[in-house]
């Protein structure tokens, strides 16, 4: 019943809001704010590239699992093989609860439970899709958002064999298969993202107590070794 009331209010609001975007009916400016929750993994806009997650330019009407060079989870590959195409309905379902739509996706995100949040976010992402309006792309959003790691630290080439041994400390919680439920996937990340995230925990910029504790005793070489192992894990 609350949902109906809410929708009625929305409909009334829509009559007032003459600048509402087509289709999704969301507010792209509010969506841009919500998108900050996504930028740890996804870039969008001019020059956006695949990071932990694939880049999101032109996501509307894109077939799932087709970004060249990005290593998708087996779950996403299966969904793609079954013909999943990203449109308003499928994106709405996916960002509400990623694993409900695509089992075993590596997208470790609890989801936006409010319809308005999803509408606003999709209205924002819509501005980076060509169809029907060809909207200019803005600057990419994701790279190294919350922390900077010294270039010489990022440049360390890790030993994947040592990383495999060290990974035993990770796989007590994070699944080597890339499956995720309540604890994020850490497989197939670009090494720069992995190293940046681990150093953010090591120096306390990211707040999680278990991760801070685990990262604090890893040396720069050990973090690089883990990054090298997890980037290449099958």
């Amino acid at each position, binding site marked *: 019943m609350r949902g109906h009331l809410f929708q009625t209010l929305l409909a009334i609001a829509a009559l007032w809001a003459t600048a509402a975007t087509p289709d999704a009916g969301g507010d792209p400016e509010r969506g841009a704010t919500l998108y900050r929750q996504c930028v740890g993994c996804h870039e969008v806009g001019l020059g956006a590239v695949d990071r932990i997650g694939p880049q999101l330019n032109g996501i509307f009407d894109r077939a799932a699992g087709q970004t060249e060079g990005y290593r998708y989870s087996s779950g996403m590959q299966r969904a793609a093989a079954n013909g999943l195409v990203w449109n308003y309905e499928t994106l709405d379902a996916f960002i509400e609860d990623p694993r409900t739509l695509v089992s075993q996706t590596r997208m470790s995100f*609890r989801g936006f439970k409010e319809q308005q949040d999803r509408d606003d976010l999709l209205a924002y992402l819509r501005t980076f899709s060509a169809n029907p309006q060809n909207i200019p792309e803005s600057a990419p959003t994701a790279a190294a958002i919350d922390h900077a790691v010294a270039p010489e630290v990022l440049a360390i080439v890790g030993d994947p*064999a*040592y990383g*495999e*041994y*060290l990974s*035993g*400390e990770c*796989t*007590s*919680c*994070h*699944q*080597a*298969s890339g*499956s*995720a*439920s*309540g*604890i994020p996937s850490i497989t197939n990340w670009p090494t720069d993202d992995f190293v940046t995230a681990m150093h953010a925990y090591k120096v306390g910029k990211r707040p999680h*107590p*278990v991760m*801070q*504790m*685990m990262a*604090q*005793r890893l040396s720069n070489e050990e973090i690089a070794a883990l990054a090298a192992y997890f980037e290449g894990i099958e």
Partner: protein
Amino acid sequence: MKFNRRAFLGTTVGALAAPMIVRAAGHGGKPRVVVVGGGAGGATAARYIAKDSAGEIDVTLIEPTRAYYTCFFSNLYIGGFRDMDSLGHSYGNLAATYGINVLHDWATGVDRDAKTVMTAGGYNLPYDRLILSPGIDFVDGAVAGWDVSAANAMPHAYKAGSQTELLRAQIDAMPQGGVFAMVAPPNPYRCPPGPYERVSMVAHRLKETNPTAKILIADPKESFSKQGLFEEGWNNHYAGMIERIGPDFGGADVEVDPVAMTVSIDGDVNNVDVCNVIPAMKAGRIAEIAGVTDGNWAPVNAADLSSRMDENVHVLGDAAAQGDMPKSGFSANSQAKVCANAVRGALTGSTVFPARFANTCWSLIETNDGVKVGATYEATEEKIAKVDGFVSATGESAAVREATYQESVGWYDGITADMFS
């Protein structure tokens, strides 16, 4: 999936009646590792040795049960947050994917001079390295009036499975306003927060179905794991329901009568409806039979979990006296990976990396009210020594507590994948 001869042996060997010696010739002269116990320590060790040696080491895992029910999260079954099936895991993948010879049998003897393990099924299995991960057994006479023959009237439910189901059924059959009693164990014991998470889960269950019921804990310990967090949670969620009697008031002076269903604490006789007796613990019996225990536990070297009595025998998890790590599934899993790396290095010359250990224990107090405690550890000459640690804070927001619970669910999937996938 890859099948080999040993994988098939694992599925058929139990059916053979006559005793036999498994000879080295049948194994192509490969080094042999026998693992006793298929829990968080043993299953992880077997899996990592087989996986990382890629067929260079012959691994046999002896485990009597065909389906393993995890002790961790079994309190959540009592609370109604998990069903029993969700706690069960098969050994099929260890045999099929990694070629581990999974033998469903009891290890009954160890000849450390001949380096063989005897089983109840009549086998005599040679090893180059033996890994014992037998978990816990109970100390005879630890609780006056109780022995394992009373475990039906007064369940311990500290090995998951039928005992856990029995305890929950007894709670559900309690009369309105009845009394659930717990006799808590002395240190050291498996899963330090376990008894208190269990009390929380029992309270959660009773609050829904039997809100006037009472919970009485007789505890020989002055203090317990995450005490501030549990007591805060009990006040918040279960006010007036739980009474704990510590040693100052006779919590260590307990006698039970499983026929009369009474619990005497410091001479005061309490009539109870359910009594969960969690006795003092010791290493699983095979460790004692193998002659690697000193007192109740098996002392080990921190660097590789090798026994202080025999360098060819390793002891993992709850059974080991290793130093500062709590006896938990997480600890056993962590120790198993260090041990597997060392055993592989000793038998095949692979690189041995320095030991490092970690543990985190999550507990659920009430729906979406999860807490955790964790630490990292290193190997010293004397013991596994704590490096750093943390514990959830009292007064945390509901959102943090819910996230902690969600994280524990993810951890369950993670560690069981690390053991069995």
